[in-house]
């Protein structure tokens, strides 16, 4: 009897005073990390500019469940993504595939800075070849005058 009372007492106390570690939302946190990594690459088709990882929409939840299921079955990330592309098209990929219509998209981030720098180098080199402009006597006199007036200003 005393033992039973003690148990009831402990149970009552337990909820209030002894905090327990919260259970992870996912049964397998490491699997969940993989799910979210895949989900971050996929576009939520019913939202505006969100990934499946970020969205709260029902479709996003469904797709996250599907990704989890497929990864659990031992499929690779690559094959899950391929499955989504087969179902929804390239539109679902936040990182567009490299193909004829996206050549420009993927090459431009290389071509723009490299091309710009090469053009800049040639421009600078040509500019230097043109040489320094010779200063005439009059120019020197004017420069001296300006320098003087500059010094006067500083004195003030």
């Amino acid at each position: 009897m005393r033992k039973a009372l003690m148990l009831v007492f402990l149970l009552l106390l337990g909820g209030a005073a002894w905090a327990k570690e919260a259970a992870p939302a996912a049964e397998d946190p490491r699997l969940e990390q993989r799910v979210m990594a895949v989900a971050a690459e996929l576009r939520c088709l019913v939202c505006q500019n969100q990934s499946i990882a970020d969205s709260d929409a029902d479709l996003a939840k469904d797709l996250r469940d599907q990704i989890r299921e497929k990864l659990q079955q031992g499929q690779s990330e690559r094959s899950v993504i391929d499955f989504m592309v087969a179902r929804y098209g390239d539109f679902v990929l936040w990182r567009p595939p490299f193909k004829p219509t996206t050549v420009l998209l993927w090459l431009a981030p290389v071509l723009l800075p490299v091309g710009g720098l090469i053009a800049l180098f040639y421009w600078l080199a040509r500019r230097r070849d043109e040489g320094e402009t010779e200063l005439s006597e009059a120019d020197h006199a004017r420069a001296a005058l300006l320098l003087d007036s500059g010094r006067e200003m500083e004195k003030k």
Partner: protein
Amino acid sequence: MVPELGQFALVLAFTLALAQGTLPLAGAARGDSSWMSVARPAAHGQLVFLAIAFGVLTYAFITSDFTVAYVANNSNLRLPLPYRIAGVWGGHEGSLLLWMLIFALWMAAVTVFSRRLPEEMVARVLGVMGLVAAGFLAFMLFTSNPFDRLLPAPPDGRDLNPLLQDPGMVLHPPMLYMGYVGFSVAFAFAIAALISGRLDAAWARWSRPWTTVAWVFLTLGNALGSWWAYYELGWGGWWFWDPVENSSFMPWLLGTALIHSLAVTEKRGAFRSWTILLAIFAFAFSLIGTFLVRSGVLTSVHAFATDPARGVFILALLVLVIGGSLALFAWRTSSIRMRGGSFGLLSRESLLLTNNVLLAAATGTVLLGTLYPLALDALGLGKVSVGQPYFDAVFVPVIAPALFLIGVGPIARWKKARLPELAVRLRWALAVTLVTALLLPFALGRWSAVTSFGLALATWIVATSALSLWERAKHATTGANVWAWLTATSRAFYGMWLAHIGVAVLIVGVTVVKGYETQKDVRMEAGDTVEVGGYVFRFDGVTNVAGPNYVAARATMQVTRSGKNVTTLFPSKRTYFSQQKPMTEAAIDPGFTRDLYATLGDALSATTWLVRVQHKPFVNWIWSGAVLMALGGLLAASDRRYRLAARELREESHLAASRDPQAAAEVPTQKAARLTQEADHA
């Protein structure tokens, strides 16, 4: 009746804009000062009428006048007053009106601060701005009128998008527009210089403070937007490479390039045509940004087709502004001798130009990523998405070299620098950088190449900034005392210095939060605890709370660290009366070295909730860095030489005018040119 007053005010502002866009320009061409004198009163008049129009629309929002279609679409009887006022710019038409009001403010500012400028220059600058204003007002009046009536009026409005019902909405758009629109001044100065054919250092000096101030606003606007997304959207991200973000980031990148290139044009007379081009494109990107965000084309190319009038008008306006200025550019620059001061292959000039090329390439990359899906879709070549994974992969490699150059540019000499000498001067900074990059990640917990690289860039900027300060002090202290030197150094230098430190602070924030943030998703009942980053969160249950136009489920979470109380967080979920879907309201405990971020997810049962807790180290450094950059910009814009030049010019022209009225008009430009040259020698 009242909304018609607003409509009337808009029409009057439009006629004034037409007058301002024609007479002063013609007057400047003919040398007719009475025509030129139209510019200032016309600008003031536009400000008055646009303020009236804006006031009328605000009044319609405050009184919930749903006979105005725009109010009915963006407000609601239960909407709290501050958001009814912010609702004025919550949609397309109203944000255009805000844009125009801010434009008129900038025009009025030009009339006030341009007294020292030659009358022709002022007339041309205001004339160009008048043309832009006329284009925008026509767009509003003919396709996007905020005062359109909706009869019979609906009993209640549709409500402002709940995402926008936030203090951020009150601040962020006006700040961003101040920046966008501010670049119009730099643009107008560039066009005026092209028309007059005088692309001299004086022109660069005049437009510099305007450009810097606009850039300051744009910096703050972007930072506010990022911070707002961070706390409002509820999953703890702070930059999403969303097309809307991109369209305010691109003008910022170009504006950054512009302020650097203006510096060279003012000091050394070089890169003039490049500076003009940048000024044109910075404003063009501001226009594109405004339209991209507001026209709905980003959500779907087909939004354009559902309202062809708007789309065609936007395209026409863009083609006119960009095409017109580029045509003028091509025509004028071929006839003007553009040769500036000469400089070597390695010099501060060439380094700044390299930074400009990289910033332009970065802008091009972002532009391509933003518009590529639209272009493919419009051409019928299929639908693709370009998002965060793409931008993260391509943007960093383009911008990293520019960040590295922040360390070299201010150290290198004008005209000609030598690599061996630079290397000797920079060797200690480089050593400090390498050691920090190798060791600091270990101290923070875990070493990774990305973290190490980010910290290397930040340390490099700080170390070289310290070096530039020290080298200046060393040269100056022969004879003078340090304090005298510190106060004598120009605010422009301190401004640059502070802004660069701001970049470093921002990089630290980005790197550390990316490398060391932790997050846990858990199911919690009252009394459960979860730990992230050394902080223990205890879930104390959920209560229902009623707001003015929503009901919320609010959780209480007690946060402790090593048994000591830190804070209590109240993450909640709001359900607005006008919407079905609940919105998460994250609870954040901000701190200097970390943010604690808690969001309440779905209820799994009556007592169990999904909860996400995050520990975000150094995340506030991201926005603090942006604030430092803005402060640096303000310091630079308030530099003594802009005011000094103003005062001297005024005095000089008064003196000259009393002696010889004819010569007086000539004096200001000559004087400005001389002051500029003196600044170079000083």
